[in-house]
């Protein structure tokens, strides 16, 4: 007969094991969610606010969202940065947001805001992974 204590420990290990995959993936898809699913509510909400604010401020400044491309190296890197923001990137592409405006100097700031929001979200997803593996409290 199985020991109930060891069964509970095995269940906890399995939950922690699945969290190592789930946390970074949901953290990438929705900024801050990787922390929220691990009950780091304040950190999750702050990350979500910071990254959403950067992304939507960038869009508001008429920043450009890069499409997948094989052209200029900076355009490719811009696309990689943008994809870091997860589901927001795909929603923005579907809604045809982020056309860009070359006539406004601030629009270039907006483009950088969107790229940096993606890069910050990648850092946040990696942090969620570190919490899941127990490297960070």
């Amino acid at each position: 007969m199985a020991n109930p204590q060891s069964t509970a420990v095995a269940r906890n290990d399995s939950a922690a094991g699945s969290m190592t995959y789930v946390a970074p993936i949901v953290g990438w898809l929705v900024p801050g969610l990787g922390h929220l699913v691990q009950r780091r509510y304040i950190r999750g909400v702050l990350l979500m606010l910071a990254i959403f604010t950067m992304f939507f401020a960038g869009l508001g400044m008429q920043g450009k969202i890069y499409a997948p491309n094989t052209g200029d190296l900076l355009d490719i890197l811009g696309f990689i940065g943008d994809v870091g923001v997860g589901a927001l990137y795909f929603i923005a592409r579907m809604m045809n947001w982020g056309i860009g405006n070359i006539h406004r100097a601030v629009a270039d700031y907006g483009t950088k805001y969107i790229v940096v929001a993606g890069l910050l979200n990648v850092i946040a997803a990696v942090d969620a992974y570190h919490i899941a593996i127990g490297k960070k409290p």
Partner: protein
Amino acid sequence: MTFELSHFNAALLFALCASIVFGITQRSTARDMLRYGAYCFSLFIGGVIVAAWVMWFIKH
């Protein structure tokens, strides 16, 4: 919807958001997160002010 920000306000917003993420992700305790976030924010803004003065001296 468009969003009008001056260059300095854009730099402030950028510094604030980036500092929040850096503070939370690069430190382990709440106190250290707050201190590191404030440190990053001051470096961002300090860098902006220094760069602005450097550009002013180059122009004049």
